[in-house]
């Protein structure tokens, strides 16, 4: 059994029909899901066993038809026609039968065995829809199984049908005498002249595409456009005119409309749904943008209030007990002094100062996941359409940008859902201006010191600053590099949905995990590297004279007019080009306190552990009471860590804001640059991104700092 080749199951269907959710439910995978069309933009696979059979299930981007319109739809089409999966699961949104069936009919033409999952069945039932699946099975010749991917119902039956060897004979649509005659003629012609093609592509699908004149197919099949037998095309032209594709479409529409009319019973009266009520406010002409801004503000307020007590707790634990333990252990093994410094002032200070922000990252990822699942993403695109027109894009480009608040990397790939190359490149160039999770640690470090009373608002203002700069840069690009109109806008707005708690947790973890992995791998490695750079040449008295210190001092004059011309601030910016959290890590190392000699009375391990637990309890209490706006007893300001003290001495509120703006705007991290290169093939656009963003960062920080000084701040 186990020697068998895995059964390849392709999952295809309309966007937002629940394909990825279904696969996650069946295979236990954690594919990205979200309540808007166009979440999946890449082919993704999951492996699992069902009843002793090993199965490779393939998630594909959603599509409305097999005539692709955007890049991710091309991926789906190409996979289905060239890779020949063993079976297709066609995921159909049961609340939207007619439109979904149009695609199903095209899928049947591929001649691949198929099972239909009538998904989102729960919502269809709640709306009072009655669907006659028996009749659908008879008409289409395939099994039709009601499922709910979110409630995990019908999945067992679905998989049973997939592995069953039951005869599966998809019906193909008969297009009527004339066309069928031509198809037969074309079939003979292909048999004679292009036998190879018939092995590569499903026959009937290929013939229909050739008749439709699909230029992509002519190209990839390598057939000259005029080489089809003239009598066939003449015949068609005479009987149907030139819009043969439209004609085929009409036949398919007719069938899908007819079938859905026959099998679907809708209640007489349509009830005004919750979705409509919410939309009246959220999409309102005047309220739309204020609602969006308020939602963003709430996002940061919640993030900050909920997570900062836990951050303080991690900070305290790392700098107190953990460092003490490390020292004790290393001393015990007789390690030389420099390794103790490497561990404490390098690794723990470096990685630790980033890890402190784990709670923040997870909180914001949680809220973003909630936003993704709620259905608001598509609304944000709607509301922002007007603003996006200023910069020669339309509202759909806003979705990749909004995703960028989590991490910029998936945003670059999300530009695939845009209709044309110009929009894709321009959107990708602007995405780095969206402040990603990795930049939060930098803001939070400074905000905690210089703006303790309105930290949420200051962080929010940085996000807004990034968006404003996107408008400014977009406008400049529109006038220079990317002239021309944006394509027409058409997008489906899904119903609002309440994401389930477990799926929220799971996908928050998926997003936040990335941050932890980064901290454990290259931030870890970099901390060690930075420590050496700060301590070489061997035996430097002062960190300023180390390699990194000298490099920082060399570029510092460039930052003088921006308010942070110190070698410390500059070297943190140098290392931060790898990933922006490293700015914080490097500062942690630079400002690691000079060894305090001979502490009196080391607490015992037991006392340490007790302290860790007690302070965690305190963090929970603070978080809950901030959230519920309970009055808090003023705690005496505890002694500040060395990092905070040192920063206080080197920055003012104004220069810290200028520094945060610089970190926000200056060159994207290397992973984003790599993603751009991969997506747009070549170094041109990554180079443009690096050049413009660094220039912009300098200009904006200059304006902030010098402007602020003029105002007497």
């Amino acid at each position, binding site marked *: 059994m186990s020697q068998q080749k895995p059964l390849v199951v392709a999952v295809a269907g309309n966007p937002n029909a629940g394909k990825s959710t279904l696969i996650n439910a069946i295979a236990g995978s954690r594919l990205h899901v979200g309540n808007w069309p166009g979440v999946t933009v890449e082919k993704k696979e999951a492996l699992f066993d069902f009843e002793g059979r090993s199965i490779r299930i393939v998630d594909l981007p959603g599509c*409305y*038809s097999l*005539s692709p*319109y955007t890049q991710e739809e091309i991926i789906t089409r190409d996979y289905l026609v060239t890779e020949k999966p063993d079976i297709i699961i066609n995921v159909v949104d049961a*609340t*939207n039968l*007619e*439109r979904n069936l*149009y695609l199903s009919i095209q899928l049947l033409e591929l001649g691949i065995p198929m099972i239909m999952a009538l998904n989102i069945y729960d919502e269809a039932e709640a*709306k009072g829809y009655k669907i006659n699946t028996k009749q659908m099975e008879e008409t289409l010749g395939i099994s039709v199984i009601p499922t709910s991917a979110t409630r995990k119902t019908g999945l067992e039956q679905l998989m049973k049908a997939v592995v069953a060897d039951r005869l599966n004979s998809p019906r193909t649509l008969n297009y009527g005498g004339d066309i069928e005659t031509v198809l037969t003629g074309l079939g003979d012609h292909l048999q004679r002249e292009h036998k190879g093609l018939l092995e590569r592509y499903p026959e009937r699908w290929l013939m229909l595409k*050739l*008749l*439709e*004149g*699909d*230029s*992509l197919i*002519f190209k990839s099949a390598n057939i000259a*456009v*005029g080489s*089809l037998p003239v009598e066939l*095309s003449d015949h*068609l*032209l005479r009987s*149907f*005119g*030139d*819009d*043969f*594709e*439209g004609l085929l*479409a*009409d036949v398919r*529409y007719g069938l899908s409309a007819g079938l859905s009319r026959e099998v679907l019973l809708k209640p007489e009266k*349509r009830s005004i749904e919750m*979705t*409509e009520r919410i*939309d009246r406010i959220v*999409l309102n*002409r005047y309220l739309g943008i204020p609602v969006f801004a308020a939602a963003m503000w709430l996002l940061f307020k919640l993030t900050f209030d909920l997570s900062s007590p836990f951050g303080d707790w991690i900070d305290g634990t790392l700098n107190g007990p953990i460092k003490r333990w490390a020292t004790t252990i290393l001393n015990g093994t007789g390690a030389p002094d420099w390794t103790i410094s490497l561990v404490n002032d390098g690794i723990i200070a470096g990685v630790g100062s980033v890890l402190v922000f784990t709670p923040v990252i997870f909180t914001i990822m949680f809220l973003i996941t909630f936003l993704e699942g709620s259905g608001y993403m598509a609304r944000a695109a*709607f509301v922002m*359409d*007007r603003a996006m*027109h200023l910069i020669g894009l*339309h*509202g759909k480009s806003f979705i990749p940008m909004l995703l960028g608040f989590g991490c910029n990397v998936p945003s670059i790939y999300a530009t695939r859902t845009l209709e044309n190359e110009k929009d894709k490149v321009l959107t990708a160039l602007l995405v780095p201006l969206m402040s990603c999770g990795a930049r939060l640690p930098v803001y939070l470090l400074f905000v905690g010191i210089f703006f303790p009373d309105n930290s949420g608002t200051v962080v929010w203002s940085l996000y807004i600053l990034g968006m404003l700069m996107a408008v400014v840069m977009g406008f400049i690009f529109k006038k220079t590099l990317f002239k021309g109109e944006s*394509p*027409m*806008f*058409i*997008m*489906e*707005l*899904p*119903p609002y949905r309440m994401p389930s708690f477990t799926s929220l947790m799971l996908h928050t973890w998926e997003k936040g995990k990335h941050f932890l992995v980064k901290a454990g791998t290259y931030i870890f490695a970099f901390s060690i590297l930075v420590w050496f750079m700060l301590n070489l040449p061997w035996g430097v008295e002062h960190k300023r004279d180390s390699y990194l210190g000298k490099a920082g001092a060399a570029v510092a004059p460039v930052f003088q007019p921006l308010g942070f011309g110190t070698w410390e601030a500059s070297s943190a910016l140098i290392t931060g080009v790898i990933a922006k959290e490293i700015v914080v890590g490097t500062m942690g190392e630079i400002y690691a306190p000079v060894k305090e000699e001979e502490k009196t009375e080391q607490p015992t391990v037991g006392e340490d552990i007790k302290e860790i637990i007690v302070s965690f309890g305190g963090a929970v209490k603070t978080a809950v009471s901030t959230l519920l706006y309970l009055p808090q007893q003023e705690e005496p300001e505890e002694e500040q860590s060395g990092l905070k003290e040192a920063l206080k001495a080197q920055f003012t509120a104004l220069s810290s804001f200028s520094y945060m703006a610089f970190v926000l705007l200056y060159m994207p991290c290397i992973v984003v640059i790599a993603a751009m290169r991969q997506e747009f093939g070549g170094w041109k656009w990554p180079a443009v991104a690096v050049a413009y963003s660094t220039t912009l960062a300098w200009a904006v920080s200059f304006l902030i700092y010098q402007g602020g000084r003029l105002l007497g701040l």
Partner: protein
Amino acid sequence: MMPLELLTPGERGEITEIQYVGGCGRGCHSHAHGPKQGHGCGLGRGRQMENMHAIRAEEMGLRVGKQIEMLSNNGNLLLLLVDDTRIAIDRRMARSIRVKGVTV
């Protein structure tokens, strides 16, 4: 028969025509009604870029004969309800769709 844009929120209409803009000089071509006016684009010309938007609209459910309800009609985007799905389109696209009023 009137342009889709003229429906006010809450009003319903039935799509009577979707114009293909551009194409091979046809100017206008409606899918399901009227005689097909072939100008000999010939087979193999492929999908006209200009028509792709109209084709996509049809695939998403905006087709001749469909009843729609206008949910929102201000600014650059319109929100339509078709078969219980909400579809947002922009004004340029809306101009190529004609409807006849339907009383509820």
